[in-house]
């Protein structure tokens, strides 16, 4: 299945060595070290928040809240997991916490707002139609598609991160794929 190809790509990007000395310094309260970590990891966290929320302003808020929460929780960071993974879990929790309070507003708002200038350094033409279609997905389907389809999570990982049953995760991915294919006109291909 195509998910395998996406996962391989995602995992390849996550095998870069982590800056353990910088992480240790940040855990010890070194703000300059934490800024270095921010510079390295913020694009991934912002991208994740942007896709999960579908709204640029909300993504900025969530990214900010995630790094603030990370700073306050650094003492509890266990180096058994990767720092990038730990950060992403914080970001996902932040998005979910925020959405629980604002769910109704999000569902009736314009979901594509703020995504017009998302860069796409990986290819020549920015796939804005795809970005807009993703941002317009129903929230539950969007969350699963973003984690599994773009960020390479397994269903087990995504279900755990989103607080879902694995069956829900799989059903939502199917739903997201169907809706996206319909929105992009891929069903006829």
């Amino acid at each position, binding site marked *: 299945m*195509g998910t395998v*190809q*996406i996962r391989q790509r*995602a995992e390849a990007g996550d095998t870069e060595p982590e800056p353990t000395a910088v992480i240790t310094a940040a855990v010890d309260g070194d703000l300059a070290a934490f800024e270095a970590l*921010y510079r390295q990891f*913020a*694009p*991934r*966290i*912002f*991208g994740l928040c942007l896709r999960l929320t579908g709204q640029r302003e909300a993504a*900025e808020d969530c*990214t*900010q809240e995630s*790094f*603030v929460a990370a*700073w306050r929780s650094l003492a509890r960071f266990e180096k058994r997991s990767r720092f990038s993974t730990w950060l992403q*879990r914080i970001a996902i929790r932040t998005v979910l916490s925020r959405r*629980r*309070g604002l*769910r*109704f507003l999000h*569902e009736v708002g*314009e*979901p*594509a707002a703020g995504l017009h200038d998302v860069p*796409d*350094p*990986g*290819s020549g033409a920015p*796939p804005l139609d*795809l*970005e807009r279609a993703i941002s*317009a997905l*129903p929230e*539950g389907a969007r969350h699963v598609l973003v984690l599994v*389809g*773009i*960020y390479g999570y397994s269903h087990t990982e995504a279900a*755990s991160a989103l*607080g*879902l*049953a694995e*069956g*829900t995760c*799989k*059903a*939502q991915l*199917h*739903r997201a*794929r*169907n*809706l*996206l*294919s319909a*929105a*992009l006109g*891929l*069903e006829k*291909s």
Partner: protein
Amino acid sequence: MKDGAHESLNEQLARLSRDVVPPEKLWPAIVREITRKPRRALPMALAAAAASACLATALTWVVLHGRPAATSRGPATAGIAASFEEPRDPGYLAARAALQQTFRERLALLDPGTRTQIEASLAVIRRARDDIRRALAASPESPVLEQLLESTWHDEFDLYDDVVRATQPTLART
């Protein structure tokens, strides 16, 4: 859903960059926040309960009065909402059936009072869906009714999920 469509979609998803550079203003804002006293967390459970109550009230009002309020939607949303009904492809149906099966098994583990309440909630969701479908038949262009129809699938999934998770105490959550 055809395999070719999945392939094409996977290729498009694979071309998306996972990194997006945040605006420069974020780091100074983070520094300001982490160098001052922590604020108390918002009572999210209360906020969620209030939001749910608002949604239920809005749903009841719209369905009973059939007067949807105006709402703004982007073109991409319109395309998706217009095509929204539950997918019919075998993969989706199999996943949904598996989830429902787990839900039914876990439901049987609950005490009779709780089980009755959950079954009543499920019946409310399904009745609301039927009502909205009937309203949509009369007003097929109503974006609010489309949103509400979609939200009933969301609510049903949430209910299944809540029961499955609540009866799975060993599930690791961080």
